[in-house]
């Protein structure tokens, strides 16, 4: 009797005890003093000494989700299951771990055997354990955590008082100056006009100002001269290219996936990029911009022709897709994580993904909140949305269906006609064999053996004769045993080729009759099986050789009829072998297998087989996969589904003389893409144990002689010539149909990689992120810290629309602050919050909290207008400060966190490359369209239009700190390494721009080097050269050119101007 049964019996015999204990963990009782003493003496000290470090509430990092510091926790166990199951040593993972069986605990070394024996004994005793206590779940104090600045409502702060009242140009400056005065910082001087227009132009459109723009601004003495510049730039369609790209970093925009296998490139991804660019150009209110990207499909179209609401969903539609060949559940969970992470960091500046495996360690985000959001995405799906009317989609599909069906018609026709054409020639077999004899004899005698002539004489086809000559060569001996006699014949020396000896004629005739016989059996024309051919034309049946062999059964010809005489047989063996190209996709069915005899008909499926030996087991009335039988697209009720190779053996009941069935290739295999297209099997029936290995391909004589490689095989191309009359016309018509279908099919309609609703359901919390272990339901709803404890459960569809509403509510404290901060960051090089996608505890606090609120509140009031925000920021005195250093300030605030000057910024790779192209005069300023390849040295489109790959990011982009598009990016790192300078010095791209720049200067200023240098500085740096720079330039240009240089002095000078720090760093 085992321990568990004892307990059970005890409970039955002593119900009163049982009921007393039922409120408690029944397995741990009864509490006996001896047991508890044992625990205190032998168990607890070991747990404390060796386990608590990693498995107690006090542990710094709880490992494996396992706590061993309370009875209940130990019984509940960790990620892998219960650690202690009282009285069940085998089920108690703790014991296995101590024995180093599976887990190895403690990791520092196995405990002594005696200690492990104590634990075994303790579990056998029922694991007496006095340690009461709830399982320690970490708890978040929402009241306290909610005090964090980022969760407070956005206020409309009053303008702080400042001492230097003449300094502020607008409200923003009150906030910055007040901070500076508080910290004893002095704002530096205002930037010069040249600096200012260069800064503003790069800032807003990512290109340098033209010399004419600069001149016009210098001449404009009006008070609003700079405001006019800003307005002009905000009107430029290049504005969206610059600012849209910043958003694409956040959206981890890319057009492919990181993996190698089975990746379909998102070639329409550019539509999302273009939508983002246009949204910025149109100053789409930011709340709408957000809503469209989360729930555009649910919000609907703005106008009949517009599909923007579907394109905008590229934010998720272009998200990461991971490799799901193994551990698909984990990969699917990882994809959800991509969505949650990008959503929450992108729009809210919250790192909700940190709560995937456990409650967020720093922010008030419980694991359940993570799965509440993940559930919204699990209720949605990737979707390639047509950007057209449904009728256009249907027209396209119809066109494609017609192409496919007309092509299939041809294939089917060819396959059938080919075999038919070959079969029509069977009656000529003997003639061909004899002609081959004559050919061989002539050759053996050194006479000229001309196939054309022989064919003509014998009235056979020359093409087929050549195939027969090849087929009957000695190398093929043994392939068809019925031809053994042929290979024994030898043309005699000196024989006259015109006379065919009688024995050859006999062999030829016998072979022809044999083939005909096989055909008759196959087609049911003859019911005579091979053993009883009777007329002596077929080989006598040898025990163990087949009664029936089908031709190759393929997708094109998916069935083979079987109807054979089995009189006197005691056993039946149904054999399916693969057709010579491997077992893949060879799902095969014996359809309606029936025994027929005196007693009537008997379904073979009602007879139990004696044995089945196969690749997979046989299934009655089901195919190999256990699904309904389906062959050639047609469903069948009765049959046996197997997978080649397979042999089913039966003992035959008495009284049956015939066996009838249809062998079929099941669609479950043949529909599996390329593998299914290639699938081929062969059915054979034996009445004795197959003598030879039954599973060897190529034994099918009919296939050998009449199949695609046989002597009667006709190539697809030749078939037309073989066909006559109606058949020929039919083929010509089929081909014309196919060509017409291809020509008239409408082109593919435009699609967007979008997002759509899927089955709406809540997820459960995955214990420590493990999809295999699930906890309580996480209702689809918003974050508790933002929406309160009683937040609504989203029940309408996936909940994306509700989610979009929650994020864009004006009282959401994060959304406006986060985007305002991003905009500020791109103007100043640093955000008011230095961690733009993390406003949580671990992020940086704002340097100017009141300013952030002022900007956010004003932003919402302005109708979420980003362009208004640019104006406010750029018209401030703060933005217009120079980049000059100030020693005293630097002592206090070296990092310029309090913006006492403008930060000198390196151009990002897009602005830098675009500026190079612009200055050289080669930039193509056209907007939008499919992505381009940056590795192409002739690519002169703006960099925002370059293909962004997750699999292999372009080298130039990677080298200059473009972010990895596998994950959302909040700001770019800035690194300076020699490889970048190698690009500047040696790359064909740089040299191309240098040459073009030099050529442009010579065209525009043909007169003198000095003129050209003046122009070069105006174009490249927006200013005239200083005297010293002019001298250096002239000296270089006039110095002797090294004869090995392939560049002119002007070209290499131009390259240096483009490669200079002034071109790359913006004041």
């Amino acid at each position, binding site marked *: 009797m085992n321990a568990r049964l004892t307990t059970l019996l005890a409970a039955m015999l002593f119900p009163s005890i049982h009921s007393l204990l039922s409120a408690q963990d029944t397995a741990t009782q009864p509490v006996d003093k001896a047991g508890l003493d044992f625990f205190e003496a032998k168990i607890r000290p070991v747990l404390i000494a060796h386990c608590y470090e990693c498995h107690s509430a006090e542990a710094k990092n709880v490992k494996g989700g396992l706590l061993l510091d309370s009875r209940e926790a130990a019984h509940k166990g960790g990620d892998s299951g219960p650690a202690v199951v009282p009285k069940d040593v085998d089920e108690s993972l703790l014991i296995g771990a101590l024995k180093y069986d599976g887990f190895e605990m403690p990791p520092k070394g196995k405990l002594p055997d005696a200690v492990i024996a104590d634990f075994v004994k303790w579990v056998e005793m029922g694991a007496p354990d006095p340690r009461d206590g709830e399982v320690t779940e970490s708890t978040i104090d929402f009241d306290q955590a909610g005090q964090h600045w980022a969760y407070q409502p956005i206020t409309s702060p009053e303008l702080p008082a400042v001492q230097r009242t003449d300094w502020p140009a607008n409200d923003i400056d009150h906030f910055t100056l007040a901070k500076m005065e508080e910290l004893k910082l002095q704002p530096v001087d205002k930037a010069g006009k040249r600096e200012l227009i260069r800064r503003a132009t790069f800032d807003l459109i990512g290109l340098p100002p033209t010399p004419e723009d600069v001149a016009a601004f210098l001449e404009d003495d009006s008070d609003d001269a700079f405001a006019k510049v800003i307005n002009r730039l905000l009107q430029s369609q290049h504005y969206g290219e610059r600012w849209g790209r910043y958003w694409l970093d956040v959206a981890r925009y890319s057009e492919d996936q990181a993996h190698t296998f089975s990746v379909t490139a998102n070639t329409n991804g550019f539509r999302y990029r273009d939508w983002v660019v246009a949204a910025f150009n149109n100053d789409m209110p930011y709340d709408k911009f957000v809503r469209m990207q989360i729930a555009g499909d649910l919000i609907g179209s703005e106008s009949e022709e517009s599909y923007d609401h579907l394109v905008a969903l590229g934010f998720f539609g272009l998200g990461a897709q991971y490799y799901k060949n193994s551990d698909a559940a984990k990969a699917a969970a990882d994809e959800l994580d991509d969505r949650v992470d990008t959503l929450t960091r992108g729009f809210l500046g919250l790192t909700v993904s940190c709560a995937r495996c456990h409650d967020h360690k720093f922010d008030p985000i419980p694991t359940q909140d993570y799965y509440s959001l993940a559930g919204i995405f699990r209720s949605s799906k990737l979707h390639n949305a047509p950007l057209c009317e449904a009728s256009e989609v249907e027209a396209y599909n119809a066109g494609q269906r017609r192409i496919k069906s007309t092509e299939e018609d041809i294939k089917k026709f060819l396959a059938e006609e080919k075999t038919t054409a070959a079969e029509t020639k069977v009656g000529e077999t003997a003639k061909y064999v004899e002609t081959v004899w004559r050919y061989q004899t002539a050759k053996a005698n050194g006479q000229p053996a001309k196939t054309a002539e022989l064919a003509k004489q014998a009235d056979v086809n020359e093409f087929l004769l050549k195939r027969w000559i090849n087929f009957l060569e000695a190398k093929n001996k043994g392939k068809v045993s019925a031809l053994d006699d042929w290979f024994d014949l030898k043309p005699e020396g000196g024989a006259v080729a015109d006379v065919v000896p009688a024995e050859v004629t006999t062999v030829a005739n016998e072979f022809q009759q044999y083939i005909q016989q096989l055909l008759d059996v196959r087609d049911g024309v003859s019911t005579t099986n091979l053993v009883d051919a009777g007329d002596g034309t077929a080989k006598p049946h040898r025990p163990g050789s087949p009664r029936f062999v089908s031709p190759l059964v393929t997708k094109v010809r998916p069935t083979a009829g079987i109807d054979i005489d089995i009189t006197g047989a005691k056993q039946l063996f149904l054999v399916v072998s693969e057709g010579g190209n491997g077992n893949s996709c060879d799902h095969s069915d014996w359809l309606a297998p029936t025994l027929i005899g005196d007693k009537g008909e008997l379904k073979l499926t009602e007879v139990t087989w004696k044995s089945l030996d196969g690749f997979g087991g046989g299934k009655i009335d089901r195919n190999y996969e256990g699904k309904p039988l389906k062959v050639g697209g047609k469903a069948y009720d009765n049959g046996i589904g197997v997978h080649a190779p397979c042999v089913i053996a039966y003992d035959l009941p008495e009284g049956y003389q015939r066996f009838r069935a249809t062998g079929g290739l099941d669609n479950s295999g043949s529909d599996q893409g390329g593998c299914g297209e290639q699938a081929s099997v062969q059915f054979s029936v034996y009445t004795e144990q197959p003598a030879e290995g039954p599973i060897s391909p190529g034994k099918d004589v009919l296939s050998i002689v009449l199949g695609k490689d046989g002597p009667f095989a006709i190539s697809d191309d030749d078939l037309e010539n073989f066909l006559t009359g109606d058949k020929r016309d039919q083929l010509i018509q089929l081909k014309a149909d196919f060509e017409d279908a291809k020509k008239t099919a409408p082109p593919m309609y435009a699609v967007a990689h979008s997002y759509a609703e899927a089955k709406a359901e809540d997820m459960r919390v995955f214990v420590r992120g493990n999809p295999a272990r699930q906890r309580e339901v996480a209702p689809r709803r918003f974050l508790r810290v933002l929406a309160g404890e009683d937040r609504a459960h989203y029940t309408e569809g996936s909940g994306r629309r509700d989610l979009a509403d929650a994020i864009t509510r004006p009282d959401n404290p994060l959304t406006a602050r986060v985007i305002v901060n991003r905009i500020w960051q791109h103007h100043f090089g640093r955000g008011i919050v230095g961690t733009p996608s993390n406003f949580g505890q671990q992020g940086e606090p704002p340097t100017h909290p009141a300013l952030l609120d002022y900007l956010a509140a004003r932003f919402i009031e302005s109708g979420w207008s980003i362009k208004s925000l640019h104006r406010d920021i750029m018209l401030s005195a703060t933005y217009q400060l120079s980049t000059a250093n100030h020693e005293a300030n630097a002592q206090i605030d070296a990092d310029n966190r309090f913006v006492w000057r403008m930060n000198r910024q*390196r151009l990002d790779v897009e602005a830098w490359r675009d500026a190079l192209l612009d200055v050289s005069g080669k930039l193509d300023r056209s907007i939008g369209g499919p992505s381009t390849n940056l590795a192409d040295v002739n690519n002169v489109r703006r960099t925002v239009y370059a293909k962004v790959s997750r699999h292999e990011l372009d080298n130039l982009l990677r080298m*200059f700190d473009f972010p990895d598009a596998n994950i959302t990016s909040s700001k770019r790192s*800035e*690194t300076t390494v020699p490889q970048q300078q190698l690009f500047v*010095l040696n790359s064909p791209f740089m040299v191309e721009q240098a040459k073009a720049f030099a050529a442009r200067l010579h065209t525009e200023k043909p007169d003198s080097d000095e003129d050209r240098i003046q122009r070069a500085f105006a174009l490249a740096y927006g200013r005239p050269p200083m005297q*010293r720079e002019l001298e250096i330039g002239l000296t270089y240009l006039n110095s002797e050119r090294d004869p090995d240089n392939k560049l002119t002095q002007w070209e*290499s000078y131009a390259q240096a101007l483009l490669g200079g720090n002034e071109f790359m760093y913006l004041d």
Partner: protein
Amino acid sequence: MTRRESLQRMGTGLGVLGLAGILAQDGTLASAADATGASPLAPRAAHFAPRAKHIIHLFMNGGPSQVDTFDPKPALTKYNGQRPPTADLKTERKTGGLMMSPFKFQKYGESGIEVSDLFPHVGECIDDICVIRSMHTNIPNHEPSLLMMNSGETQPTRPAMGSWLLYGLGTENQNLPGFVVLCPGKPVVGPQLWSNSFLPGVFQGTHINHANSVDPKKVIQHIDNSYLSSTGQRRQLHLLKQMNELHLERRGGHDNRLEARIESLEMAFRMQTEAQTVFDLAKETKETREAYGTGQFANGCLAARRLVESGVRMVQVYYGNGQPWDDHGNIKDHANKAKDVDQPIAALIKDLKQRDLLKDTLIIWGGEFGRTPVAENGNGRDHNHHGFSMWLAGGGIKGGMTYGSTDEFGFAAVENKVHVHDLHATILHLMGLDHEKLTFRYSGRDFRLTDVHGRVVHELFA
């Protein structure tokens, strides 16, 4: 010390910048680099005294079979063709009965460790080698397992180990990339295997396709100037420097980033010569060339030695394009590949030893997983993540030992199991880094190469 001087010292390996200095919020090194002025690739002190300074990872992509190389299993012969319950583990595809190895094993060296006749030359070096016979990983598919071996995660969202090493330690030679990946063509997955991911772009591995030859002019992008003579380029650089210095002068004469770029241009100029020299295998003696033999892998091994000799932190040498060791069809095909790698690997070990570099250089040999002891397709073997062998040599590793073991058929690791995370922790430890402390703050949390796993296998250390 001026900034310029400081930079120069960094470049010569004297500068030491604590790791803390480079740690910055949410993926920016810019502010840290500003403050200290140090290149992010300048050498940095390890957490503790390192046993190894360089790594050469010989990557047998596709997954070599353990029971045909370094984990002899006589039971396979005894039970050939059978499928006992213990050999009934799930892998990627359908497999059949146990299949004995077609290769013979023999004992080598003083240690007497058995190696199959696929690796006679490596066998001669066995007393310098520690074979780990109890490796295991998570998933029997190439992509996730390649990512796991390189980045410690099965999805393409984490930095490669080489990137982590550069982030933690910098590199000794500022004129060469610090993390070089040699592969004729590209392994499956490709660039994500040497990706910096969320670390800054400078920590990305430099992939060199040496399928045709190791052409010094082409191995590193833009390393060669084909437009100006050497003198011509020197003069152009002088011009550029003059202009950059005037630019700097007008901005108060001091700006870390502007100065760093001026210095970086000079470095690039020097890099042209140095990198081309390092990759010029013709500079080796005839004896050395002959010792390594010929072929892509031999060239890769020789280049790897020249690179670590010049101070490159980590070099990976992939066997070949795609996943060549993936012998599903016929395990005997392992022989062709082993023939390509056996002699060069042994030559590499001996060469490093002779130059007294082996003690500082950790050699790692292995694939992304192993293969099944049971047969697939008759004579092939399927992927196997339950158990496989890798070996380490040099760099503080105890030679002539085996560690851990698989079950009697070589299917699953059973004794002293070493997960890939454990291997990573061990490698970082050898390089002087605590795998729990080498962290990068990104997306609001600290990431590690070993995630929340990893056990340093101290038993392997000399």
